[in-house]
């Protein structure tokens, strides 16, 4: 594992130093990837730790985005310090309500029910005037960090935004790893393996699963908040199940049940997508990048079921054997 950890830290340093190259396009691209990595990590808490495959998490991502767009006054910056907590509370409350319903099911039912709930919220935003219908809403100005006239950082600047997201991503990574090794995380892992036995040991499944669902929903809301800030608009597509499926794909590409897998997967997925959609590489076919992405998804499920980070594990295991 030592080599694996070293490479991860090296990767983190590389990402942290990346803006020094000064290419604004890439600074924005990596910011987007890190936001998706936060989304992917929070989904991994459900998928990897609790064994709950949710296809409806795009809903929390989208609702949080809509919440910040609706909370902000038009053409004026809202304060980061009250909008962020409010959006997180909204996400948590929504996750609590949805979780109470969907956790009555399990296994394949859970997949279908989460998908249907996500789609319900999608059609609510798509068909009603609440959030501007199918066009969505604009967020003209990003929230400001100023308190009493003093502004520690300015999210309008790509560089400041980049480090803001970077710090949050590392924070979420540390938090989720703490959760995984906590008694709560161990109970979740037990429920994933054998629910019956955990119940007889005195661990009721619903409160633990609900806790994980709410935490994952809240952190997904955090990602949605950041995404709305970065893109400057929100539309119903953020809530669609395609978004959830894409993030699940990042998870399996990077490796499930390890949070660095989610980060590696987010980078791998978005960079692959950028490459496939690049006209410089693929010319006229680049328009149909989804075809290549679909083929890659099928191949990676068949050939690399444990994700890219499993290659890293294998590499470090080989090295260890050589050392001993």
């Amino acid at each position: 594992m030592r080599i694996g950890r070293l490479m991860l830290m090296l990767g983190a340093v590389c990402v942290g130093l990346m803006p020094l190259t000064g290419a604004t396009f890439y600074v924005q691209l990596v910011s987007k990837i890190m936001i998706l990595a936060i989304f992917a990590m929070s989904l991994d808490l459900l998928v990897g730790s609790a064994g709950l495959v949710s296809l409806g998490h795009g809903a929390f991502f989208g609702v949080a985005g809509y919440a910040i767009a609706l909370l902000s006054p038009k053409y004026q910056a809202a304060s980061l310090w009250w909008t962020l907590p409010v959006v997180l509370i909204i996400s948590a409350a929504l996750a609590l309500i949805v979780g109470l319903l969907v956790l009555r099911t399990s296994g394949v039912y859970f997949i279908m029910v989460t998908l249907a709930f996500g789609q319900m919220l999608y059609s609510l935003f798509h068909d009603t005037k609440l959030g501007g219908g199918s066009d969505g809403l604009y967020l003209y100005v990003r929230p400001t960090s100023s308190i009493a006239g003093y502004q520690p950082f300015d999210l309008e600047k790509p560089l400041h935004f980049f480090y803001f997201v970077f710090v949050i991503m590392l924070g979420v990574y540390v938090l989720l790893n703490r959760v995984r090794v906590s008694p709560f995380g161990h109970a979740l892992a037990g429920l994933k393996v054998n629910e019956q036995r955990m119940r007889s040991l005195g661990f009721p499944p619903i409160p633990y699963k609900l806790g994980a669902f709410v935490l994952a929903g809240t952190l997904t809301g955090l990602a949605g908040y950041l995404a709305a800030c970065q893109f400057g608009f929100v539309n119903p597509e953020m809530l669609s199940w395609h978004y959830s499926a894409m993030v699940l794909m990042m998870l399996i590409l990077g490796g499930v049940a390890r949070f660095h897998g989610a980060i590696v997967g987010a980078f791998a997925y978005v960079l692959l997508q950028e490459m496939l959609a690049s006209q410089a590489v693929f010319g006229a076919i680049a328009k149909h990048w989804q075809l290549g992405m679909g083929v890659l998804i099928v191949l990676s499920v068949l050939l690399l079921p444990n994700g890219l980070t499993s290659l890293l594990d294998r590499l470090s295991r080989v090295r260890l054997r050589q050392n001993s």
Partner: protein
Amino acid sequence: MSGSLEFLVQLLNGIQYGLLLFLLASGLSLIFGIMGVLNLAHGSFYMVGAYLAFWLARDIGNIWLAIPIELAMVLLIGVILESALFSRLYHRDHLQQVLLSFGLILIFEELRSIFFGDDVHGVPVPPLLRSSIPLTGTLSYPVYRLFISGACLVVAGLMYLVIQKTRVGMMIRAGSTNREMVQSLGINIKLIYRWVFAVGVTLAALAGMIAAPISSVYPGMGSQILIICFVVVVVGGIGSIKGAMISALTIGIVDTLGQVLLPEFSGAAVYLLMAVILLWWPQGLFRVA
């Protein structure tokens, strides 16, 4: 008087939509109930069916000749996909099945975009079925919608007969309960799985094909119908054909009437129904243990 007749027309439309949903959901439920595979690409086969109908109706002109050609093509696609991809995933978890079929959705959608473009196309109703039954001076009911309902009922009846009354049906039912036991009795379970998968997706394509003249063909039609299909299966209970029939009819009627009465919230009405049912019967109305 005309108000209640109008209601009757909407009710008939709801039943027709429900029967169509049954055709789709039964294929999904069959594949899941027997092989334990959740195939998200089921809706894509609905789209494939509809676009093949559009293509063959345009280029062959004779829909009665087009139907068998199309069904044979989809059956072949089903056999190929099962043997090349899905058969490798029977022992893996749902997450990987979900993602594999998500990859297939992207591939199908993009192929559709390459071959047919992103426009909405209409599909002509076959000449024999083009008439309508007059109800009052202004109201009439198209024969083609009655044909859809009839066709769905015939397929449902056939499916019931095959699964419950034939030797193959017996093998299928046995295979869903205990794969190893059936195999050790000398039955080729892999072959059975292959054909159940192929027939399941062909049912979806058939639904798309007969729905095409009234729904027209458009991008994303597969995803849209897939979600409703999931709701049908969740409400009815997986593996229960009776449950699928009852929930498909209920949802067909709720959705159709909802679009007339509350157009803004019709999208959410069906999901609300699902939420209410889940509160009382988390396993669906008719779950087969």
